[in-house]
């Protein structure tokens, strides 16, 4: 599973790619409404199969965010951050 500080393609194995793909599919399913960070981290944890550490979940989350595959907006009623898939994210998902 992903750890902080490991970068590039070599840092990811099949499980990592599966986890990232599942996270991106979740974002795609949520469409313009998006999901909360907590829900996405839970989803990453589930997709990994075995329970993950906070650091591993954050590393996967950062990877998706830093590559510009998702972005956030403030939900107007509760003012919470919700993450949605970007165009780049969709392209990446289609390539997976």
């Amino acid at each position: 599973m992903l750890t902080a500080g490991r970068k590039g393609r070599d840092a990811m194995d099949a499980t990592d790619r599966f986890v990232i793909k599942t996270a991106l599919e979740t974002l795609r399913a949520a469409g313009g409404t998006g999901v909360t960070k907590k829900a996405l981290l839970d989803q990453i944890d589930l997709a990994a199969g075995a329970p993950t550490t906070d650091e591993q979940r954050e590393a996967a989350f950062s990877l998706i965010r830093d590559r510009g595959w998702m972005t956030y907006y403030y939900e107007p009623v509760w003012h919470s951050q919700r993450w949605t898939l970007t165009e780049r994210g969709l392209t990446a998902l289609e390539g997976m």
Partner: protein
Amino acid sequence: MELEPKERIDAWGADLPEKVRWDCYDLCRGLSWPKGVIDQLEAIGIKDDRLPRRTAWYNFLARMRKADAARRIDRIAQSVAEAQAVADRHGIKAAVFVETLKTLAIDKAMGGDDKAATQLASAAAAIWDRAQREEELRLKNAAQATKDAALALAREKFEAAEKRLERVAEIADAARGGKVDPATVADEIDRILGRKK
């Protein structure tokens, strides 16, 4: 690209019906091995030689966790569709309201509670219905107030016209004696009718 290997046919749980597999996962995932898990599995009806070994159980959990992630994605899609259907069924046009419905439904589906997601969407629709009825009542009241004001104005106009008529009749009576100059009578009538200041 297939990222995950397929499940082995001889893996523990592979031969169980879909519903039983999910029951095993949902009821046992938070329990300690072996006591809690074995007790719960026996309560479900899996006994003796059908019970898993430790490694087989954790492999089963790992597979089911991945399947759970996929199930949540399906639930999100269903919840969004359900929220949209509720909004359409109740004629909800407000974009923020529809988005809020979807947000609630997605959050509940992500928590694994799709029943609550539907209930929330229905509750929101009921609130919307009530808001609509209150708005209709407010508009009806406003329309009634406008009608009352128009009626009062019409009455005022009618009373003023009656007063003018009475005044003209008085002048006509006074003019009958022939003592009043016709030009003065005409001026007076013009003043009453508002044609002259």
